[in-house]
Structures are given as structure tokens and as C-alpha cells.
């Protein structure tokens, strides 16, 4: 692909409830922080791609809320109704097409304004799955059980993985501070083995000549019905990952940030991405450290970008997903420019 690089990234601190900021104010906060860090301003931005969920926001055409803080009036803008990692594909395409030189990418999510479990239920098949009361957490439980059974593992591996993520998140000033208990939530997952519901936003600026370039991406979608997938397998994740590595011409990365909605996914996605032990996985704590809706995957990209820009490795992988227990995966390979 034509080189597209990241000129800068910003994210809010993530937490359980941001009553002090509506969507416009949350987007304003993260975009102004991005401009502060990069020395950029709206007049140098050519186009805007946002990511948000109309159901999470309780608002159809949820991007209307962020038009002014994103500087969209009078410009070309669009919205991807998936995780920000997928929105990044469209943003990069806009630049690679030659039509635009710079693109502001912004994603937001506020779990506190709606009811994440009830909203998740509305995402399952309305005829066959919804009536049984399934939601994202119970689906994660099904996946974790299938994963343990298939690998012949004990539930203790879930606790160990969660503890590692919690330890990493404790060192991340932006992570969602929570007091999750080790009580059963969706068998075999305990409350502290499921990613939190967070409020937060993330923004980044794409263009030419930044310190870190987007080297490749891959994405793939799986079947909708849970029964059509083996939840104990990483599904279409390896396909997305292979495509990203192939496009980037990269065999192995130095650091990886993944969207793990449960500690079972921390293990399963690592396997699906084929990441060897030496690769630092989720040094930020990952999604287990903060899960602000459709901003979660874009935060992964931002985390990897910052690490590479600081010289902590030359290549990195960032993963985002949308849908339940990994129906759609997106994998990015980032590379520090030498």
C-alpha cells in the first residue's frame, strides 16, 4: 500500500462514568489533546472518519454529536459503524486514494449512558437467539467454556491471564480503575475475567511523514450464529492476521495490543495471531484494562504507535473487533520509520 503514517495519537483517561462530558465534550477533549501533542489544527485536516455505535449512544446517526468538535462542517466526513480499527481502514484508504492528504480519525464510546447487556442482546438474531436472553457476557462465557474444554485447561488459566492484564493496566495512567471481584459472572468467567464497560475516546491523525507508518492490515468476518462457529477456535482471526502480515511484509512483531473482551480471549486471540512468547502482549493492559465501546480497537493502535515512536520495538500489531466473541476481526501492522 501507499505509505500512510500516523502523525499523532491521543486518548482520554477511561473510566466507568463521565457525567461531566457529553459526546461533543468527550470528542472535543480528545481531539484538542491530539492537536496539542502534534501542533496541528483543524485547518490542516482534510477529512474526518469517525467510529461510534448508534445503539450505545442511544442516538441514530450518532456521529452528529461530534461534527463540530471534529471540525467536520464544510469538509468531507464519514462514519464507520464498527470499532475504530475498522474505521482506520477507510481513513487510510481516503489518503492512499490520493484524494486527501490528512485524515482525523476519532472514536468514542460511553457505556455509562446506556445498558450494555440489553444493547448486546439486541445484537443477536432477533428470531432465534434474542429470546433466550443471551448477551455479550453470556456469549463470552460460552466461548471461555468451549476454549477450556477443547484445550483441556482449568479455569485457573483465566484467572492468571486476568491477573497479568490487571498488573499491566495498573501501570497505565489511562486505564479504567475498577474494583472487579473474583465472583462468578458468566460461567466459567468471573467478573474480573471480563473486560470492563468504560467511557472514553481516542483520536489519531493520519498523513504523510509521521514517525510510525501503517504497514499492512487484514480483516475478515465470520458467521453470525454462534452455533456456526467453533467458539473454542480463533475463527477468522488467523485469516485477518496473515493478510496483515503479508501486506506489511512482516513476519514477526515486537509488541502487540489486542481487544480481549475476556481473559479467555487474551489467550485465544494470542493463539490466533500466532504470537510467540517473546512478543509483549497488551503492555497497556489491553481491553481488559479499558473497553470504551468502538474506541477500544483504536486505542490499541494508539498504544502500539506510541510505543514504537518511543523506540520500544520496530514493528507492532494492533487488533480490533466488532460483534460477539470475535465475529469480525481487524489486524493492523505498524512499523517505525527508520
Amino acid at each position: 500500500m501507499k505509505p500512510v503514517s500516523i502523525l499523532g495519537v491521543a486518548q482520554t483517561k477511561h473510566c466507568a462514568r463521565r457525567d461531566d462530558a457529553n459526546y461533543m465534550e468527550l470528542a472535543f477533549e480528545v481531539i484538542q489533546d491530539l492537536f496539542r501533542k502534534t501542533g496541528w489544527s483543524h485547518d490542516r485536516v482534510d477529512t474526518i472518519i469517525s467510529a461510534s455505535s448508534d445503539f450505545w449512544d442511544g442516538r441514530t446517526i450518532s456521529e452528529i454529536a461530534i461534527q463540530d468538535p471534529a471540525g467536520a462542517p464544510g469538509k468531507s466526513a464519514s462514519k464507520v459503524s464498527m470499532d475504530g480499527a475498522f474505521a482506520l481502514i477507510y481513513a487510510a484508504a481516503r489518503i492512499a486514494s490520493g484524494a486527501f492528504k490528512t485524515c482525523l480519525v476519532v472514536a468514542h464510546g460511553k457505556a455509562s449512558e446506556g445498558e450494555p447487556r440489553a444493547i448486546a442482546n439486541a445484537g443477536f438474531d432477533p428470531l432465534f437467539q434474542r429470546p433466550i436472553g443471551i448477551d455479550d457476557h453470556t456469549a463470552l462465557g460460552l466461548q471461555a467454556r468451549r476454549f477450556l474444554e477443547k484445550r483441556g485447561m482449568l479455569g485457573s488459566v483465566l484467572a492468571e491471564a486476568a491477573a497479568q492484564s490487571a498488573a499491566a493496566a495498573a501501570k497505565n495512567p489511562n486505564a479504567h480503575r475498577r474494583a472487579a471481584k473474583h465472583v462468578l459472572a458468566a460461567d466459567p468467567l468471573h467478573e474480573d475475567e471480563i473486560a470492563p464497560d468504560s467511557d472514553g475516546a481516542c483520536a489519531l491523525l493520519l498523513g504523510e511523514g509521521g514517525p510510525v507508518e501503517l504497514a499492512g492490515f487484514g480483516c475478515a468476518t465470520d458467521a453470525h450464529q454462534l452455533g456456526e462457529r467453533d467458539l473454542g477456535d480463533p475463527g477468522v482471526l488467523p485469516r485477518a492476521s496473515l493478510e496483515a502480515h503479508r501486506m506489511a511484509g512482516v513476519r514477526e512483531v515486537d509488541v502487540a495490543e489486542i481487544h480481549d473482551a475476556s481473559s479467555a480471549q487474551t489467550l485465544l486471540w494470542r493463539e490466533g495471531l500466532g504470537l510467540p512468547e517473546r512478543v509483549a502482549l497488551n503492555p497497556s493492559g489491553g481491553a481488559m484494562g479499558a473497553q470504551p465501546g468502538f474506541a477500544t480497537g483504536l486505542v490499541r493502535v494508539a498504544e502500539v504507535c506510541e510505543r514504537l515512536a518511543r523506540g520500544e520495538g520496530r514493528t507492532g500489531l494492533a487488533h480490533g473487533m466488532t460483534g460477539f466473541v470475535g465475529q469480525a476481526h481487524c489486524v493492523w501492522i505498524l512499523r517505525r520509520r527508520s
Partner: protein
Amino acid sequence: MNVAIIGCGQTNHRSRRLDVSAPELIDEAVQLALSDARIGPDGIDAIVVGNMEHFEGIHLSDLWAVEGTGGVGKPQIKVATGGTTGSSLAQAAYYLVASGFYRTVMAVGWERLSDSEGETTTGIVTAFDPIYERPTLAGAVSGLAILACQYQAKFKTRAEDAALVVVQARENAARNPHAHLTKPVTVADVVKSPLLSSPIRYLDMCPTSDGACAVVFTSDPGDRKSAWARGVASRHNHTYLGDVAEGSADFKHTLKLAAAEAYRLAGMSNPRKEIDVVEMYEPCTWAALDWAEALGLCGPGEAAGLWASGATRLDGDIPVNPSGGVLCTNPIGATGLVRVAEAAMQVRGIAGARQVDGVETAMATGFGGSFWNEVMILGAKP
């Protein structure tokens, strides 16, 4: 990279399609598009899908619909921007191909407005600020009534002048097997129809439809009949409705800007002469008048005269909506994509009974959100 449209498929749009589920409805359009493009599902490298979740009450509707789009195992990206969803899909597909990321991308939009049981307005109200604007807004109907009120006050346009837009639209729709409303109406019918939100009456407003549309974009059309994207532009708008017509702006401000950019990209200096047919996203009669002026088809306040002169008819010198337009068919997530599909069919010379003679250049527009607009100009040559 140059991008061509090589395949278009759409369902026969109706008020209610109870005989099919959403994935089945989508599949109808997808199969037609693939067959028109003369490619198999393997020829599609990526899919962009769009639908407005709140109308059907289905969160992540794109992921539910994956069996209908043929997206299992493929990259599939959802773009959802309200009324513009369909035109935004076309633009996303365009950029994904123009970037070189994918060779062939299919855009798929759909809506089953009957699933919302007549409460489309309820869904649209939630697009605007929950605290300040929802209590007064009555969906797209009253939002457009505000536009109509200002247009009427400015140009002293009569209800009968606006009514002519839907009279002509219905005449055209009768030639289009995909159109939802095809029964002829008269000016008298329109001005006597029930008041929705003054000055907009029932027959001034678009319907709510069930339907799907799929369009195939590629950088490698081979010898297929192609409509080439020559000007792609979008201009967005403010967060609050109260800011849309602020200062020197009006309700057609972003369409004017988007059209100017699309004309520039297509190298046009006299769009009125250079464009052979327009597929305009006209959600109500009054908006069609205002927006024909934004596109430069006539001067300010002259649109009523443009329609009355017959210039906008199928055999006129600037035909507008030979398909019957949004006034006759409106499955929201597909509506903007239907404009692009119809424009592409005109350029490719396959629009059947609604074909305009000798189309070299066609324009499709999309309207949505807080009065933002998108434009795509298609030509017979790259």
C-alpha cells in the same frame, strides 16, 4: 486509480416484504448485482454494508446480515450515516478501490422500514440532541418543513409549484419496476392530501419502503459496460439543527459545496449542459426545488419554473429522477445507493423504460444527518 461501476442490483421496493428475512432481502439485490457484473462471489474482495440500526431495532445489523451479503470470510465494513448511508457506501467503496486496497468492492445497503411498525419518525428524532432538539423535532418531516418554510418565505413559491415535483416523479416511477409508489397523482391530489408538518403534506413527502440495493465497484472492469466515477465529494454540517442555517448558510449550503467540488474533480464548467441526467436525493418536493438550485440546474427561485417547463421530465433537457426518485421509493439505508445505481444504469444504457437517450454523464446525490450532502458524478469514460 480509476474506479468503475460494473454491476447494480436492487429489489422491487415495497411497503412491506414479509416474505423474506433481512438477509434474504439483501441476497436478492446481491445476486442481481453479481449477475449484472458477470462475476461470482469470489470476485468480490471486500464488502461495505449500510443500514440504520434503530429502524429495525437490530444492533450490529451488518453482522446479522452477513449471510445475505456473502461476507463470511471476507472483509466487511459497515458505514451508516443516516439518509446518506447509501451514498456514503458508494463513496466508501470508491475510496477502498481507488486506494488500491481492494480490486473489487461491493456496496450493499438495505432497510426494512416496515419492521419499525410505522415509527420511522421516532427513530429519526433520536438523531438530534437528546436534551435540546428531540422534544420539538418530528423527524425528517418537520426538519424539512423548516427548510420548506424558509424557501417559501424567500421565493413566495406556491404549494402547487412544489406539488409538480411529485406529479412528475410518479410519472417516471410508473416506468420503473423497482419503484414503490407508481400510482399517478395530480397537483390537486397533493395540495388536498393530509397536512403532516406545514407546509409539507402527505404527498409532498417520501414513503417508507422495504428494499435493498447492491453496487459493484472495480478498478479492473475489463470489457464490461462501465460507469466511471469522475467526481466524488461530500460536505458535512453542524451538530445542532439550530446552527445549520447560521450566518450566510442555508439548508442547501453543503450540497452547493459538495456539487462544486464534484464538478471541479470532473472538470466541469457548465454542469447544466454537461450533465445528462440527475438522480437527486429529494426526500420532499420542496427540497427538490431548493436543491436543484444548489446543483446549479437553475438560478435561485427558478426551480418551480424549471419543473413547470418540462425540462426535468424524462425527455427534457435536464431529466431529474427518471427512476421516480426518493419521493416514490425510500428504503433508507439503500436510498442513496439506489441513486448511484440508477445513475450508473443510465450511463451504462441499461435503464430500460426509464432510460434517457444518449447519457454520457450522470449525477447522483445523497442527503442526510444534519443537512449534509454527498455527490457522485459518473461518466461513460474514466
